[in-house]
């Protein structure tokens, strides 16, 4: 007996919950053969606002968590993704990948998560510094997370692009609101399920689906977003984001890399969403022969 196929409704991810969009709207992107991929939430401005509130709430404890523990949690994401490999591969194929490319993309995503998991408790040592100053001060600079980061995921990949620009952000103790690829959204939502079943606290990552055009504006004008990471290639949209960012001097970073290359990951993507705090601590000589330290 033939059976009716169940078209999955993909929900959004806000504050560790999977609500439907408050607007009740959805869209159905098509695969190459013109068949609908699924029912995808068409998120509204209010969803963006809710996600930002959740991200801000989660920021305090996530940024203060021990770096080593953050690393453990990120590693756990990789473990969970490894366990659900098959689902991601089949979703990628559904969205137009060949089997070989799909497998490569999932493997590379897992490796990339492990890469950033490793950096969690190391970037601080590598990037911070003790600075020589011409007074009796112990002067040092350390990194602190920027805050809530809005992420516009690359449009042309479903998984690897999202992973590549999101991981350095949370690795550094930021929380984020991600707008998934509009036409290839399946892996983003399934990745939210992975995040939820690993140990990432609710609100650290919030994932919305919908049209960039509609959501960019709210994300980039919102006064409680501290930085925007743009992974798309629409220069007009980027210009608009940069103009909106002026409102509260958000940092804006735009990446256009080929995320499928093994070397499209680096330490400086972590430091992009970090602020540098320099402290002047009154003290005697440091490192001189008369230093008593």
């Amino acid at each position: 007996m033939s059976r009716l196929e169940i078209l999955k409704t993909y929900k959004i991810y806000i504050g560790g919950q999977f609500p439907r969009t408050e607007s009740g709207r959805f869209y159905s992107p098509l695969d190459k053969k013109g068949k609908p991929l699924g029912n995808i939430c068409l998120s509204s401005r209010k969803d963006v606002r809710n996600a930002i509130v959740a991200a801000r709430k989660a920021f305090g404890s996530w940024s203060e968590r021990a770096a080593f523990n953050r690393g453990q949690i990120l590693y756990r994401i990789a473990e969970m993704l490894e366990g659900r490999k098959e689902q991601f591969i089949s979703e990628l194929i559904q969205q137009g990948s060949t089997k070989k490319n799909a497998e490569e993309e999932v493997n590379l995503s897992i490796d990339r998560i492990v890469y950033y998991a490793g950096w969690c408790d190391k970037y601080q040592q590598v990037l911070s510094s003790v600075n020589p100053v011409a007074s009796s001060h112990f002067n040092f600079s350390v990194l602190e997370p920027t805050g809530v980061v809005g992420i516009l995921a690359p449009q042309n990949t479903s998984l690897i692009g999202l992973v590549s620009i999101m991981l350095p952000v949370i690795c550094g103790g930021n929380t984020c609101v991600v707008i998934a690829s509009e036409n290839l959204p399946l892996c983003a939502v399934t990745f939210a399920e992975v995040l939820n079943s690993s140990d990432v606290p609710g609100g650290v990552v919030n994932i919305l689906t919908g049209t960039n055009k509609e959501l960019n504006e709210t994300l980039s004008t919102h006064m409680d977003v501290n930085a925007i990471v743009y992974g798309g290639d629409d220069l007009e949209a980027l210009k608009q984001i940069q103009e909106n960012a002026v409102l509260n001097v958000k940092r804006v970073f735009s990446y256009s890399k080929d995320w499928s290359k093994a070397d499209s990951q680096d330490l400086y993507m972590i430091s992009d969403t970090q602020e540098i705090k320099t402290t002047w601590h009154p003290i005697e000589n440091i490192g001189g022969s008369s230093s008593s330290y």
Partner: protein
Amino acid sequence: MKSKLVKKEIIHSDNIFSPSIDKVGVEERVARFQSRSIKNESKLQGLKIALNMIDLTTLEGKDTPGKVKQMCYKALHLHDVHPNLPSVAAVCVYPSMVRIAKNEVRGTTVKVASVSTAFPSGQAPLDVKIRDTQFALDEGADEIDMVISRGKFLSGEYNFVFDEIAKIKETCGKARLKVILETGELTTLDNVRKASDIAIYAGADFIKTSTGKIQPAATMQVTYTMLMAIKDYYDKTGIMIGMKPAGGISTSKLALHNLVMVKEILGNAWLTNEWFRFGASSLANDILMQIMKMETGVYQSSDYFSID
């Protein structure tokens, strides 16, 4: 023996006095207040009214003169970036801080409310409560927020509660008296109604839900029940009584829901800070952020507003 009990129940004054409350009905009606669609223009006006109804409150053991002064400054300068904002209705402090607060807000429309009668527990003898109240008044309090003796109320000593309120009212003289029922400890809506009636008949100018120290505090259900007591009293006597939900109202949405409820039950006459107040500390900032959102079109961040 049995007939005696029944008789006692019948003559038990409060059973005749206060109607019993249909909890399910209350919940349904309250749910409907929350589903009104409010147009942007009315919303902006509503937010400004709500702002003007706030009793900005600090009631903590760690309060210092500095903290109270800071709060009074905030009461007068809610968000100076925006020129046309109302100030809040009052600041609400402990008796020991009344003089400091009064000095800060003197000559403005902002009043000083003081809690008294061994706030928040109310566990003190009557003469201590009277002295507590008198002290607050001598220090310059314009309004007194007293707590009822919940222990006595729950053990059925309604006359005691009534007399106590009446005594404090007498002490207050012209100062307006708000009576805190601490509804979180009264457990049922029937009790809330009963306590409301006792407070109103004993001379309260305002009835207030909670101290803010006990959860749940000012739920819509409780506020609704108290508003109905005020309405019944008004219908009977023509005398207006004020209402102050306090504790747990921290978002502008909830504040607007409350205003809708007041308007629909009691009417426009109650929509001023003379008859309706919000006891809150973090509500003001949320309302300010909403107002700024409506006027600038962009969502706001608490980074750009004063610290509560």
